[in-house]
């Protein structure tokens, strides 16, 4: 007999485009572990309870690799692109550990702190430019997307002359509305762009990340040229629209709650906590981590069988520490540990430090 399962979907309700799909909330309340259809031929377990999700993400027996049998491929854009599959965020240890360590020192909190002056200068420049634009302006286009592009371009060492094209490609590449063919075409063009930057750094080394990866990893044989391009692509897409999304959602949230904004402006509440809480509330990584079980594993009383895959929705919007009651943002005054973009084997500090 054919069972009818709810279809796994990440599409938010039309009337609330910034929210998670309503059925996540319903499932969390009534059935925190449920079987859902993923695409037309597969089903997966969908976990919506914080503790279950946390247990899964920190259990090394769950694989992040889309090539693991039973991995929930469908239902998330770009999951099966070659760049995505080869990227370190889709790998398990020890491959993940080897790749992640190649940039560990570049994204330590103290290293990121070293970017502060340069990031502040970039932001000041962009804020000044906003004042010259006619009203109304598109904040996302004029500010939110350009700031991370500027910062990442400097970090990587993209020459000033190439920056406009770099920004265009980055913006297109991280647009989820593209068709699959369009997405692949822009990824190919970005890969070519990476090859050109690497060739340039071989001729004219600079004090930047691409130069370092080229000399320390490519020339030593630790990375191939396509792997290096994949690495750069991953760094760009991990930091670009996550940061842009946070800028846009944070500004919108503070405008919707002017009394909170006033408390921040007067210094009665800390901006640092507000940034942490905004990251937690909005959870900009929409696609939700997916894993495949490599063993029979019990999670919160549910047996997850080998090769039965499952998806996990946005995790932290309903984090137990969050004080979001009836749309009231009292949350901004509290701090209960840091927000995570990912537990498991993700690039926590990478996203967190850069987005801050």
């Amino acid at each position, binding site marked *: 007999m054919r069972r009818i399962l709810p279809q796994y979907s990440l599409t938010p309700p039309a009337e609330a485009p910034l929210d998670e799909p309503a059925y996540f909330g319903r499932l969390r309340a009534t059935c925190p572990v449920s079987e859902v259809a993923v695409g037309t031929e597969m089903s997966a377990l969908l976990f919506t309870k914080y503790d279950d999700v946390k247990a899964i993400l920190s259990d090394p027996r769950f694989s992040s690799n889309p090539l693991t049998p039973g991995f929930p491929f469908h239902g998330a854009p770009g999951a099966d692109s070659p760049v995505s599959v080869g990227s370190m965020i889709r790998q398990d240890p020890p491959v993940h550990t080897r790749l992640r360590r190649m940039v*560990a020192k570049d994204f330590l909190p103290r290293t990121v702190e070293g970017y502060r002056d340069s990031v502040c200068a970039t932001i000041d420049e962009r804020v000044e430019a906003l004042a010259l634009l006619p009203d109304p302006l598109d904040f996302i286009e004029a500010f939110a997307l350009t700031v991370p592009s500027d910062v990442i371009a400097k970090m990587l060492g993209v020459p000033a002359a190439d920056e406009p094209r770099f920004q265009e490609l980055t913006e297109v590449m991280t647009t989820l509305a593209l068709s699959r063919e369009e997405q692949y075409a822009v990824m190919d063009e970005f890969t070519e762009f990476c090859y050109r930057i690497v060739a340039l750094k071989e001729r004219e080394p600079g004090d930047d990340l691409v130069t370092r990866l080229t000399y320390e990893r490519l020339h030593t044989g630790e990375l191939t040229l396509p792997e290096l391009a994949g690495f750069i692509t991953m760094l760009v897409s991990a930091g670009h629209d996550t940061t842009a999304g946070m800028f846009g959602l944070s500004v919108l949230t503070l405008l919707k709650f002017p009394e909170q904004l006033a408390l921040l402006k007067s210094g009665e509440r800390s901006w640092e906590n507000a940034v942490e809480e905004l990251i937690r509330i909005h959870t900009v990584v929409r696609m939700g981590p997916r894993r495949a079980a490599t063993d029979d594993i019990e999670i919160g009383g549910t047996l997850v069988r080998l090769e039965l895959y499952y998806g996990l929705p946005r995790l932290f919007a309903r984090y137990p520490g969050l004080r979001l009651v009836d749309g009231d943002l009292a949350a901004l005054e509290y701090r209960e540990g*840091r927000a995570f973009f990912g537990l498991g*084997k993700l690039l*926590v500090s990478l996203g967190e430090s850069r987005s801050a």
Partner: protein
Amino acid sequence: MRLTLDTSRCAGAGQCALAAPDVFDHDEEGVAYLLQTEPGDQERAAVEEAIASCPTRAIALIDH
């Protein structure tokens, strides 16, 4: 309390040193190491946060 840190699992996410800067640091390659293996009780909350934050579960409390 006594701690161990499995450097082969460390991916250099940097979370431990953020949570407990007097107990953890990172070497020049970004791999974490312990500044002290038997931190005092005043570090307990920070160490517990560091353990919970570590994405690769590289830190363990072996003696409470």
